[in-house]
């Protein structure tokens, strides 16, 4: 069953614990938190929106978990679910891009690194997109750029609020300049969207960097970040290579970015839907 079919088929709330592959949390009833090294009870983590009950570390969510977290039960309808990459450069270094795509599809059960569609937040219809880091690090190639752009255009046409949940290492290098141009394409679409007064809220989750942070992700009317999410343009390793020293702990965290004025507010995952709903109410 493809994610599209899956989303279309489901009519009732699918609780978070039934979702697919988990990130960062080893299987088993008990496990160790990768952030604080404490032993945590898996069920409690899942019940806690995949947030460590000991240290509040926010583990990555899959696209479907995010849909379940934020949208009203059964309200999500996916758009363009069948869109896939066509490997425009016949890219192959060490591993062919086509193989990477197949593997990503298998691991995630998704066709690409973003799922877009419409759905409701407390009965308010919105256009919604969510990236999935499992799919080649949530990287943006032609498909991500196109689906984001169509979502923006749809929100513009239908006068609906736009909410995009970001999680990405940046542009997808395997599509070369086509990927870079998705930054231009999505930003241009946002420029048009902003000519009207419908709200656009982006949610930056761990991590949001590179071509995604340097295009649509940071162009929102309001930017919400999840606690401790890594947010920046250059990746930490690139910076360390440039400045030739270790980065301080917490550098490029949501908290630091808030302090530096780049983020509107940081919201704990458990309050995310409620805050989003309130903000939409102020803006729309």
């Amino acid at each position, binding site marked *: 069953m493809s994610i599209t079919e899956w989303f279309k088929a489901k009519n009732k709330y699918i609780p978070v614990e039934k979702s697919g592959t988990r990130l960062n949390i080893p299987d088993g009833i008990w496990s160790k938190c990768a952030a604080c090294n404490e032993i945590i009870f898996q069920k409690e983590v899942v019940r806690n929106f995949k947030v460590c009950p000991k240290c509040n570390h926010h583990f990555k969510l899959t696209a479907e978990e995010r849909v379940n977290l934020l949208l009203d039960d059964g309200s999500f309808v996916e758009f*363009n679910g*069948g*869109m*896939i*990459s*066509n490997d*425009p*450069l016949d*890219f*192959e*270094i*060490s*591993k062919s891009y086509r193989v990477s795509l197949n593997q990503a599809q298998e691991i995630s059960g998704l066709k690409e690194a973003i799922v877009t569609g419409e759905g409701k937040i407390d009965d308010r219809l919105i256009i919604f997109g969510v990236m999935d880091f499992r799919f080649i690090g949530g990287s943006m*190639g*032609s*498909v991500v750029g*196109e689906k984001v*752009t169509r979502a923006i255009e749809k929100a513009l046409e239908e006068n609906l609020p736009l909410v995009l949940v970001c999680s990405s290492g940046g*542009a*997808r*290098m395997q*599509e*070369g*300049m*086509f990927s*870079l*141009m*998705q*930054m*231009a*394409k999505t*930003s*241009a*679409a*946002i*420029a*048009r969207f*902003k000519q009207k007064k419908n709200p656009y809220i982006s949610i930056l989750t761990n991590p949001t*960097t590179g*071509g995604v*942070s*340097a*295009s*649509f*992700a*940071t*162009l929102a009317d309001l930017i919400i970040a999840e606690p401790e999410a890594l*947010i*920046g*343009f*250059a990746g930490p390793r*690139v*910076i360390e290579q*440039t*400045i030739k020293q270790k*980065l301080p702990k917490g550098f*490029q965290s949501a908290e630091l970015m808030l302090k*530096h*004025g*780049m983020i509107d507010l940081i919201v704990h995952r458990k309050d995310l839907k409620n805050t989003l709903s309130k903000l939409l109410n102020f803006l729309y």
Partner: protein
Amino acid sequence: MARYVLDFEKPIFELQRKLDLLKKVSPLEKTDLTAEIEDLEHKIEKLKVRIYSHLSPWEKVQVSRHPDRPKTLDYINNIFTDFIEIHGDKLFRDDLSIIGGFGFLNDVKVMIVGHQKGKNAKENILYNFGSPHPEGIRKALRLMKLAEKFSLPVISFIDTAGAYPGIEAEERGQALAIASNLMEMSALKVPIIVSNIGEGGSGGALALGLGDKIFMLENSYYSVISPEGCASILLKSENGDSSKAKAEASTALKLTADELLERGLIDGIIREPLGGAHHNPSEVFVELKQALVSSLLELKKLSTNKLLEKRYNRYRKMGVFIES
């Protein structure tokens, strides 16, 4: 001829040195060396053609970074008249990695912006190797908004390894600065003509690179990631630092002017003299100026609405995918 010699150019420079020596000793020798000299000159010419006319993508990347290559200020001084430099972002700092100001292109008033690289260590420190901080990206935007207000077309020059990846650059919002430029440039109500004269490094290049006409010099490159970055990520188990890996990445990324023109991502290529623009800059100035003038003429015919619609559609259709 250039002081700085790239690896693949070495055979030419070997022969050249021989020739220089021969010419030097010739008047002192009894035997007539004219024939030998002519022969060597002929050989050099043939070798140059053989080496320079079929540069690999990785070799082109190296040429694009040649320190003697003309930089933005050289283009400003040789293509435009009456240049008046304008400084600052009116927010934090005057980032010298970005240069800009008013100038005349023949009799047309324009706004010029570009990445500025140095030709030596001292200049490169001053210009931060042409890698802007957020304030440089914002400086460029400020000048473009000024141009928009006063109906001046924007002529942009790209020449950067990328936006500067440093702590302070991150803290001051590199990502948002680039994103803002893309958003604003996509809707800027004056023509924007972009010329990539050397390095087109990712977001830092694109932040000055969204426009209505995109030219690339023959030996410039434009890429989502540097060949080095790509190689080190994808070939880390093997030797990502080797020349071979970089060459492989350069080829795979399809980052040359020819590759990009073929894919409809740019509009035209400015040919360079054999060996690169620094072997005969004035030739390049003339050709690029011609391209700018005729593009401007073409773009000025469009209404603002039509211009913006075309610009939007240009980027709107970029991307390759399959819909089932």
